[in-house]
């Protein structure tokens, strides 16, 4: 997973996601969820809340995607660190340490994040992993 700083942050990276991002949202599992895509600054770029998904799902999807975009790693990494006993990580600013958020990495540079909420956390991650795969 790429950890280095984006060479050209901001618009270049944002535009890059958004060109393909919409196609990146897919519904292969027929689960009712909210999905959020954010740029490398952690700013919302695209959001959908499927019929039946709760307002909370929309907020959770944004929070997970933001965590992944800003920390450039899967939210599962955070969840597992805390689960392993590193409780102090709960004090990290703006972190949502729940599986279902992934960084979007293009050419070894993190250009944003994507988050989902609505089904079980590992299923949320399956959905967004499919979305990232669709980016090519």
């Amino acid at each position, binding site marked *: 997973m790429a950890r280095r700083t984006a060479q050209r942050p901001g*618009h270049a990276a*944002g*535009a890059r996601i958004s060109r393909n991002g919409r196609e990146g949202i897919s519904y292969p599992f027929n689960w009712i969820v909210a999905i959020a895509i954010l740029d490398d600054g952690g700013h919302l*770029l*695209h*959001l959908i*809340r499927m*019929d039946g998904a709760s*307002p909370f799902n929309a*907020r959770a999807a944004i929070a997970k995607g933001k965590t992944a975009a800003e920390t450039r790693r899967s939210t599962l990494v955070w969840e597992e660190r805390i689960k392993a006993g590193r409780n102090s990580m709960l004090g990290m600013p703006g972190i949502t340490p729940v599986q279902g958020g992934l960084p979007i990495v293009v050419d070894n540079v993190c250009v944003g994040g994507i988050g989902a909420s609505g089904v079980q956390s590992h299923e949320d991650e399956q959905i967004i992993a499919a979305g990232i795969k669709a980016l090519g």
Partner: protein
Amino acid sequence: MKHVRAVLASASLALATCAMAQQPNPMDNVPDKMPNDIPYGTPISLDKAQAAISAAIAESKKRGWKLNVAMVDSGGRLVAFARMDGAQLGSIAISEHKARAAAMYRRETKAFEAGVQGGNNYLLTLDDVIASRGGIPIVVNGQLIGAIGCSGGTGSQDEVVCKAGAESVK
């Protein structure tokens, strides 16, 4: 000096009383009917919300503008959102705020803008108000099912794009 002040104060008080007697406070008016009495309906579907966003973005592209567009449901909660390439970041929250205010207050945010412009500054003390045009409720079959909010340009630009989105749903 004290005496002069006292005289001035009593004179101005008399004037104020006089003025009030001549011009009744419009806020004292009690209308018979409820304003903006639109029932809340079934929350807007994602399909409709996305169609409205697409229509708004098409209008914005046609004019070469870069805006943020937010759709909320009848509860004022986000259903769909899109930020056009190059749209300003500050407007992400503003577009959602406009949509939310339009749904929560069952009127266009332009009404607040006009009210404040007309001197009714008390409007700004109402909860979660945004006094800027570009937030429009989506009313279908007499029921409010959601609202659209646009931000990123001037208020007038935001409103043009917002209208294109709102009208596509009806």
